[in-house]
C-alpha cells in the first residue's frame, strides 16, 4: 500500500522545535511519509506544501497559547486552494490558560478541524486518530 503523506509543522510565531522533532520521528516510525515544515510555519506554507506533495492530511502543532488565533481561517484557505476536505488535525497547548478541553475542541471543530488534542497527548493517540481519518485500518 502506498504510504499516506502528512504535512506537519508548528504554526505561527512559535519556535518550539523539540516536540516537532519527536512527532516527526513518531509519525515516520508509524509508516507515514512526512513533510516536516519545522517551526514558525504560516497557514500558506502548510497549504503550498500539501498541494505540491499531494498530502493526505495536515497536522498543526502549537505550544505557545496563540494557536486559536493562528488557526483561524485555515479550513477556508484550504478550500480556496483546492484542498477541499483534506483532514486537519491540531494539538498542543492550543489555547491560553486553563480551559475545559471539551469547549476548546468544540471551537476548533467549528473552525473546520477534524480533530483537536489537548496538551500531553501521546503520539500514539494522534497516530491512531490519523489512521482512522485516513481509513487506513480498513485498507490494511
Amino acid at each position, binding site marked *: 500500500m502506498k504510504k499516506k503523506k502528512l504535512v506537519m509543522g508548528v504554526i505561527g510565531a512559535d519556535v518550539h522545535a523539540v516536540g516537532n522533532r519527536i512527532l516527526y520521528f513518531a509519525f515516520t516510525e508509524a509508516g507515514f*511519509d512526512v513533510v516536516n515544515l519545522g517551526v514558525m510555519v504560516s497557514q500558506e506554507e502548510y497549504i503550498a*506544501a500539501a498541494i505540491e506533495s499531494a498530502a493526505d492530511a495536515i497536522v498543526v502543532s502549537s505550544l505557545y497559547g496563540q494557536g486559536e488565533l493562528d488557526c483561524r481561517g485555515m479550513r477556508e484557505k484550504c478550500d480556496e486552494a483546492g484542498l477541499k476536505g483534506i483532514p486537519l488535525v491540531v494539538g498542543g497547548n492550543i489555547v491560553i490558560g486553563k480551559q475545559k478541553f471539551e469547549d476548546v475542541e468544540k471551537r476548533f471543530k467549528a473552525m473546520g478541524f477534524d480533530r483537536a488534542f489537548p496538551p500531553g497527548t501521546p503520539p500514539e493517540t494522534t497516530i491512531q486518530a490519523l489512521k482512522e481519518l485516513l481509513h487506513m485500518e480498513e485498507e490494511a
Partner: protein
Amino acid sequence: MKPVLLIDFGSTFTKVTAVDIEGERLLGTADSYTTIETDVGEGLENALKKLHAQTGPLHYAARYACSSAAGGLRMVTSGLVPELTAEAAYQASLGAGAKVLKVFSFQLTEDDIAEILQINPDIFLLVGGTDGGNTECILHNARMLAATNFDFPVIIAGNRTAARECERILAGHEVHICENVMPKFGTLNIEPARQKIREIFLHRIVQAKGLSQAAELISGILMPTPSAVMKAMRLLAEGCEGESGIGDLIAVDVGGATTDIYSMADGMPRDAATVYKGLPEPYDKRTVEGDIGMRYSVRGIVEAAGLSRICQLSGLDKSRVEELIDQLCAAPDTLPAPGSDLEKLDFALSSMAIETAVTRHAGSMEETYTLMGLTYVQSGKDLRSVRQIIVTGGSLIRTRRTDEIAAHALASPLAPMSLRPLKADIHVDRKYIIAAMGLLSEYAPQTALRIMKKELEYNGHSEQKNS
C-alpha cells in the same frame, strides 16, 4: 605559444578574446557589431580584423563561442505552486543562462496557452509536484499543450510519477525527460534540468538562430553567454586544482536593457537564532532584472529608486533629469561625454541599478518576537559575509567612478534588513573577458582562473557608509 580564440556573439556586439594557453596570458580583445540578419560570420571577421591589428596574425589551436544573439535563449516555464515548483523551474532556467519570458503556475488556461504560442519560446520547461506528489497539474498542462500544434522542445522535470505519461501525452513533439526540479518538498534539484537546457541549446537552438553559419569557423557554440559568465564566476570563487579561488562573491552586470546579478555563496543562516523560510536558493544563483537597465529600461530604474534619489546622486535638478531621460529613451545609443550632465546622470542611474538589483537578489531578514524572545526569520540568501564584488557591463567598465557605483551593492543602514555584503573588495572587468574565461574554463580551468585573477582590476575596498 598556443593561441585560443573565444567569441561572444552578443545581441549588439560580437566580442573576441585571444588567449595564449601556454603563457597563461591575454593576447588581446576586440569587438564589432553583430550581424545576425545577414551572416554572423561577417561581424566575427570584422572583430577578428581589429584583434589581429593589435596582436598580429594568430593561428588558433581552437575557437569556442557563446551566444546571446537573436534574443538569447528564450524560455517559458510552468510549475504548480508559485513559491515552490514554479520558482524552482524559474531558478533552473535562469541558471542555465536563459531569458525567462514568463513563469506560469497552477493549471494552464486557454488564455495561457494562447500566450505561450504567441511567445513561441526556444524551450518550454514543464514541472510540478514533488516526486510522488501532485500529478494532476502537470498532466493537465501537458494535455493543454498537446492540444495545440506548438513547435518547440519541452523538458519535463516534474513529479517523476507523471513523467512518462506526460511524454505519451506529448507524443509527436520533441520531449526530454529529466529529474524533478524539486524531488522532495523544499529540496532544490535544478542541475539536471540546467544540463538538459544546455544540451538542447547546443543541438537545436544554435541552428535555429542562424548561428550555424559560423559553426564551420569555430569548434562549437557551447552555451548561452550568461551560462559562460556563471561558469567563470563559479571558478573564480571556488578555484580549481592547482589554483585557489577568491571565495564567495557577487557579480553585477548592468546592461542597457537588463541587469544580471550572480552570487556564489551558500547564504544559509549563520546562527541558531535564525529560522530560514521559503525555498532554499542555489549556491550559484543568477537573477535578471528585466526592468533595470541603463538605456532601454532607464525608466524602470527611476521608478524603483525614485526621482529624488536620482537627483540627489547626480546633483541635477528634477527637470534636467527628466529631460535627459527623455533623450535617452529616444536615442538609447547615446554615450556620455566626460564632464557632461549625462555622465552625472549615468553615475546616479548605474548606482541605483546596482542597489535595486542586488537588493532584489539578496535575501532579507525579519524580526519576530516570540515567547522565547527575539527571533530572526531569513528568506533568501544571506550575503552579508561576501567580501568580493565583480563588476562588468559597458556602463560600469567605462566609467571612472566604478568603486563608488559598486559600493551601492553593499548593505545600507537605511535598509538594515536587506542581507547585502557589509564590506567588499571591488574588481572590475575592464577588458570584458568574463564570458570568454567561462568558455575557456571548460578546457583549461587553471589558465582561465589565473588570467581572471590577473586581469580583473582591483578597484579599491568599500565599506557600508553610515549615511
